């Protein structure tokens, strides 16, 4: 046997004085970490298998378990960190591309945390959201540049289709296949209850979820999996996925073993075949090509559905967005480099793309400068973590935000970043029936609704504090933000003043 260079990342710490050997940890760990030594009547653990997902910790009835990061250490230094050394060992052992999941974990600046929100004092009174009406509803879609009237002076109602959201937060694309049926059902039910939208991702739409169509964004991606006319018409909007923040410039790969049963049917590909989404759309090499697809989709849906074009935040994002805004798209979705994924090459995830805050600010500014900001709504995603991030995004110019990692956390995800293994102990990123059933959508949808309701309350509090009673009045209102710990260049791109200015 080859020498194993790797020491387990986590250690399972069991307080044997509390453990009652009920074996719930053993039964709930799909990784086989825990086992009962029947002769000793003692529970034991194999640290090497632990992914630190906390399923056992959460279910242990006596709180006898905790997981700690190992303090075993390499002789590391600032350059050759333990993580770096381990990755070399891993690749030297396997010869493979390193795979990771969820978002970029590297310590790049989080600009949300360098932006501060304003509040009213004395001269412009704040508003109490418990007493005054406070509007968080937004409409996404192209807005007319001017009001048109007919010869009788009546307004000509020629508004293109709009999405109406009670709260400017949507659930971003996660395919059926990458996440489970029950995760999808939870998202769909929550979106309906919240009057917002969730997004099918590129895995097609399971027939059971057609009933949520008013709250569904159907995605068309480079693999075109599961796309057919009824699918396009089943959504309230159609999203063309050009890129994803976690892995800009590359496609996707759902291994054949996950293409089973309903997943295969929904994707319209044979069971067991790999679902490979190409890096580019092979019919799109220009904005003109994109425009053709946008209009093909509009034609297929009788111009009743807004079309979203989703791009990853990359270096040229402002120029790209400018092109997209001229393609006929109604909404641009921009995904920052901290956005999650079910699986991406580690190097791509950790090194490609740019922060969403900078991308948003530059896109909003560019579209304003070009006088085409009203052509499109802007939706941003890629690690929106809380209601303050939402408020800051809107103040930087977003019409709404996409969340996914936050939504998964609400469903029980513990960010163990092992989605690619398909053994999600929380029933989210798995297709194994006995794991999928761990996520009861009654509970999942309730928790999602709770989360967004809580955020909505907080958004109203912050708006009230600023003396703003409508989210529309906050949009692009960068005077409500101040920077801290930022250099001139960053302040310039973000279009905000320094704190104290």
């Amino acid at each position, binding site marked *: 046997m080859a020498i194993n260079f790797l020491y387990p990342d986590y250690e399972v710490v069991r307080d044997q*004085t*509390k*453990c*009652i*050997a*009920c*074996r*719930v940890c053993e*039964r*709930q760990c799909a990784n086989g970490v825990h086992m009962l030594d029947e002769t000793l*009547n003692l529970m034991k653990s194999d640290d090497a298998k632990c992914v630190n997902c906390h399923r056992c910790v*959460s*279910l242990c*009835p*006596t709180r*006898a378990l905790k997981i700690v990061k190992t303090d075993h250490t390499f002789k590391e230094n600032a350059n050759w960190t333990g993580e770096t050394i381990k990755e070399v060992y891993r690749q030297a052992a396997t010869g493979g591309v390193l795979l990771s999941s969820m978002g970029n974990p590297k310590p790049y600046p989080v600009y949300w945390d360098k932006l501060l929100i304003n509040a009213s004092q004395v001269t412009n009174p704040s508003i109490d959201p418990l007493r005054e009406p406070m509007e968080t509803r937004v409409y996404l879609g192209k807005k007319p540049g001017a009001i048109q009237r007919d010869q009788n002076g009546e307004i000509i109602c020629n508004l293109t289709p709009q999405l109406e959201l009670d709260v400017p937060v949507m659930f971003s694309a996660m395919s059926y296949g990458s996440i489970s049926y029950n995760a999808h059902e939870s998202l769909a039910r929550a979106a309906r209850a919240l009057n917002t939208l969730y997004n099918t991702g590129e895995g097609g739409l399971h027939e059971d979820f057609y009933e949520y169509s008013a709250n569904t964004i159907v995605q068309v991606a480079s693999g075109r999996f599961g796309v057919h006319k009824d699918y396009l018409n089943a959504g309230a909007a159609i999203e063309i996925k050009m890129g994803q923040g976690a892995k800009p410039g590359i496609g996707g790969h759902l291994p054949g073993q996950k293409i089973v049963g309903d997943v295969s049917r929904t994707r319209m590909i044979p069971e067991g075949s790999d679902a490979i989404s190409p890096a580019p759309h092979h019919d799109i090499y220009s904005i003109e090509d994109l425009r053709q697809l946008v209009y093909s989709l509009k034609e297929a849906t009788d111009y009743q559905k807004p079309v979203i074009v989703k791009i990853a935040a990359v270096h040229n994002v402002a120029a790209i967005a400018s092109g997209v805004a001229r393609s006929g798209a109604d909404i641009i979705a921009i995904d920052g480099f901290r956005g999650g994924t079910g699986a991406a090459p580690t190097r791509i995830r950790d090194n490609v793309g740019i922060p969403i805050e900078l991308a948003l600010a530059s896109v909003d500014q560019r579209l304003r400068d070009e006088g085409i900001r009203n052509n499109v709504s802007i939706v941003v995603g890629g690690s929106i973590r809380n209601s303050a991030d939402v408020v800051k995004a809107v103040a930087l110019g977003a019409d709404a935000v996409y969340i996914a990692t936050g939504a998964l956390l609400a469903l029980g995800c513990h960010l163990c970043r092992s989605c690619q293994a398909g053994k999600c102990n929380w029933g989210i990123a798995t297709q194994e*029936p*006995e794991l999928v*059933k*761990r996520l*009861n959508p*009654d*509970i999942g949808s309730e928790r999602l609704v709770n989360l967004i309701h809580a955020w909505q309350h907080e958004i109203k509090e912050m708006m009230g504090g600023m003396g703003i009673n409508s989210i529309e009045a906050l949009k692009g209102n960068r005077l409500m933000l101040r920077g801290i710990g930022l250099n001139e260049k960053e302040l310039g791109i973000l279009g905000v003043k320094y704190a104290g200015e």
Partner: protein
Amino acid sequence: MRMKRIYVDEKWCLGCHLCEYNCAFSNSAETDMVKALKDVPINPRIRIEEAGNIHFAVSCRHCEEPLCMKGCIMGALSVEDGVIMIDQEKCVGCCTCILMCPYGAIMPSDTGVMQKCELCINNAGGKPACVEGCPNRAIVFEER
């Protein structure tokens, strides 16, 4: 009689067996689960049946036509507000209720007399511990 009952949906049962441990704890005289259950073989009133990927919990259904009560030779079983209760002082452990119960939901206690789910009405504040502790709402306590 319309009343809250325990219902089980095997679709959501994970076979984690927490209900059994919560039951055993709730029906112990202890206030600390570790003290109650450490190194103690449990004898809960709710039991998981499992085969392959199917799991479900079985406990007293509190039948409207309680055959256990009708069959009890000692009059140890009675219905109080729809809840079938056992008087363990009266029970002599003859097992007639085991003969009668179509769900297999009554069983000997550690002392040999019978025990059954009484919906925790005499402990845990009237909320069945199996329901409270179920991580996936596979066991619910509601009126249907």
